[in-house]
């Protein structure tokens, strides 16, 4: 009996929490596959000028509406064909990844920051602070998100900045709710009460005791949010409210391709496939993160 009780405690030496978590992360296939795809996409976006075969803005009406490689009357060098203005689809696709990823990372981070800050406040102080913030969340969630984003971009003017701001302004509620619930639960914990009794200021407690326990759930949510951000950007550029029409975006390509979908379906299909794959990757990554970092689910 006595041997049993000693061996049930974690070893004093050996890998610490961070390393063990990292190992758990990498053991989860969804994380490696999803994360791997995203990393590859980041690389592609970063090295776009060197990877893209052609200039995405170059128009050549002599080479307009060419099918992708392998089909009849395809032109060598234009692997995914060209659109009605003779622009290379593959190159535009590669450059489109830049916008998608920039929006994804920045918007998701901003939304997470704002939502987490407000969630921590609401969960810790409760009372009228929580009442106000919760009422704000309710009002926000009464808006159809797509409509609100279109409205915001119309108000703020077209451009990547507006798109990022719009997404962050709309989706902070998602983070706020989760962080608020977590904070409320954590605030009951004994070690928090102890820290409070000792006299640590709330900010210190929030940062040192509560936030670290919220981070795993946050990470998964951020990954999910990035997927959502990519979609929202695509919707906005589809409707014509994102960046200027010259800069290639997947949504814009889809909208253009829609016009001539019967003649040049590849202009429509290629960015759609890229969009689908990217969203799926962020989704799987978020799912995998949640599973790997959740102490209850981990087996």
């Amino acid at each position, binding site marked *: 009996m006595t041997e049993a009780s000693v061996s049930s405690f974690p070893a004093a030496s050996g890998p610490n929490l961070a390393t063990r978590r990292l190992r758990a992360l990498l053991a989860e296939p969804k994380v490696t596959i999803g994360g791997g795809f995203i990393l590859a996409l980041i690389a592609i976006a970063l090295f776009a000028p060197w990877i893209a075969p052609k200039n995405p803005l170059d128009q050549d009406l002599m080479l307009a509406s060419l099918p992708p490689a392998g089909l009849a009357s395809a032109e060598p060098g234009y692997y995914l064909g060209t659109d009605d203005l003779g622009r290379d689809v593959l190159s535009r696709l590669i450059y489109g990844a830049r916008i998608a990823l920039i929006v994804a990372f920045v918007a998701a981070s901003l939304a997470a920051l704002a939502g987490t800050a407000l969630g921590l406040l609401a969960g810790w102080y409760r009372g009228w602070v929580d009442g106000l913030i919760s009422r704000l969340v309710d009002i926000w969630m*009464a*808006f*159809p998100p*797509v*409509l609100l984003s*279109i409205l915001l971009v*119309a*108000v703020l003017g077209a451009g990547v900045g507006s798109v990022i701001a719009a997404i962050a302004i709309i989706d902070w509620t998602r983070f706020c709710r989760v962080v608020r619930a977590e904070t409320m639960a954590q605030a009951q914990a004994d070690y928090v009460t102890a820290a409070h009794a000792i006299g640590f200021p709330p900010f210190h407690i929030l940062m040192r005791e509560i936030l670290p326990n919220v981070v795993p759930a946050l990470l998964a949510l951020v990954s999910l949010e990035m997927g959502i951000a990519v979609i929202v950007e695509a919707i906005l550029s589809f409707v014509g409210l994102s960046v200027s029409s010259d800069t290639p975006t997947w949504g814009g390509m889809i909208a253009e391709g829609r016009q001539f979908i019967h003649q040049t379906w590849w202009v429509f299909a290629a960015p759609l496939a890229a969009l689908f794959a990217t969203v799926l990757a962020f*989704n799987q990554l978020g799912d995998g993160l949640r599973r790997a970092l959740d102490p209850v689910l981990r087996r």
Partner: protein
Amino acid sequence: MIALAVLRRLLVALATLVGVAIVVFVLLRVVPGDPVAMMISPGASAADVAALRAHYGLDGSLLSQFAVWVRYALRGDFGTSISLHRDVLALLGERLPATLELATAALEFAVIVGGATAIAGAMARRTWAESVIDAVNGLLLAIPDFVWALALVLAFGVVWPLLPLTGRVNPSVAAGMATPFYFAESLARLRFDVFFDLLKHLALPTLALGLPLAAVIARVLKGALNEAMAQDYVLLARLKGMSELRLVLQEALRNAIGPTLALTGVQFTFLIGGTVIIERIFAYPGIGNMAIEAVINRDLPLIQGLVLVFAVIFILINIAVDLLVALFNPRLRHA
């Protein structure tokens, strides 16, 4: 008591609605780009511009504008659309039924398909079939309605051109419909030609809107069913000689619906929100499509009216879900 709870919810809803109105109002007044300037012909005098501005209530301070708008709104007058030159309320009334038909169809689709999948999955508990269902469902969960809609356009526009890609109904077929509620009216008047034409046009938008919700329902309901099936009362029922299907439907389902509703109820509001872009993609004449047009045209009165309509729908759905959850929990019902 239930009555008190409902009253409280309604009051909160009203407060939320007021908040929404304020937010929209303020947001729109910050707009760079003067809608009035877009409407007048060049060479108009300053007096004409001022008169137009006054006509649309765009003069005066923010507060006075809001007060005026509220006063009129309470009387049912939501102003005149700047881009369409018609009464906002009338426009809303024309287009809302189409969106309601679409949303209802998508909801029914999601419940039927999602529910059937969940029941099949629960009956295949702990077999390879369940793993397959889980994997496929997991994948489908990741696809938003926007992507579904585009994929369906590709599939049914290019690969198998079976269904119409745009519109709500063939105008020549639907001539003679008295109300904007085409679906109900065509059934009531036994106009099956209109009915089937409506179905053909509804098919793709309904699929696009309904599939994400179906995937969510399938996952949550299956989880709740599995949890119920592990309970002792199911063992007792099994000993009574019931078939697996009967066990799931008669014993487990009623205890699984409550928790499922609580978790998925909010998803239905996402479905309503999704009508905005789905209607746009399929050129479906509902309020979602109109909303995008209104924003692009900076049509302030119309935008305000539309946002309020959406907010009211959202709030009503939330209340309905809460009531249904309470209904399905016998403990709450008797409390």
